[in-house]
């Protein structure tokens, strides 16, 4: 029960962070990507703020190796730079710039009742399923 409350709260805090930071507004994300226009560096400050906190949490997690509930932490172990990593990230980047949405903000905007966010999220789920289907072993 405790864990469920923590996880739900983490999702809620993440969403509030996205709202407060302005990242649930696609126009603001595009304002960051538009270097040649009226550039808005806010997104970089969101990342800085998040990393400033998470950096210490991950250092702790990596040195301790277990959670506060004494369970083993499995961190991503991949280290190879693959073409899938780069091509996948570039495809992601094109979609991100086209809509101004990435997964987190789109889900928060969906919760706020934006129909366009619903369309984006359904297409995103379809894209994930398509990848699963094409690359299944």
């Amino acid at each position: 029960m405790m864990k469920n409350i923590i996880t739900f709260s983490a999702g809620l805090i993440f969403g509030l962070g996205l709202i407060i930071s302005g990242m649930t507004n696609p126009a603001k994300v595009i304002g960051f990507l538009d270097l040649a226009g009226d550039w808005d560096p806010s997104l970089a400050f969101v990342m800085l703020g998040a990393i400033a906190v998470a950096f210490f949490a991950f250092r702790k997690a990596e040195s301790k190796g277990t959670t506060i509930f004494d369970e083993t932490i499995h961190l991503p172990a991949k280290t190879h730079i693959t073409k899938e990593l780069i091509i996948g990230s570039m495809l992601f980047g094109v979609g991100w710039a086209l809509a101004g949405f990435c997964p987190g903000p789109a889900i928060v905007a969906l919760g706020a009742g934006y129909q366009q966010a619903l369309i984006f999220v359904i297409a995103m789920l379809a894209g994930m399923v398509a990848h699963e289907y094409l690359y299944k072993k």
Partner: protein
Amino acid sequence: MENFTPITSFIGGLLIGVSTSMLILFMGKIAGISGIVASLLQFKNTPKGHYTWRLLFIAGLLISSTVYQAFAQLPVSEISASTSTLIIAGLMVGFGSKMGSGCTSGHGVCGLSRLSLRSLIATMSFMLIGFVVTYLILHVV
């Protein structure tokens, strides 16, 4: 830079960092939204508890607008993309994040916080292409 909001954006970022820290320190999980969503679409041979924490985290995200609204006016999401663009963008974000094993949260926040070279390369890849695509859309086409 008239739209620049360094303070609120940094504070929002701190909250995202707190959330990410809670998930790793209490649950041993990575707050990568695309990975969490993609894992909810897997139905075969999933271990016990596979869905619970992921559904709860997504539920928290979905309810956050309503909670915010209880205290202040919710900022507007200005979405200029057409329906067809939203569909293409969504497909690319879903497919690409799965292929590249992460998105802005998984690579951009968690990965960079761990000083992962893979995540740095991924973040640079989607940001650079994002700059190029935005330039083409807003200043060339």
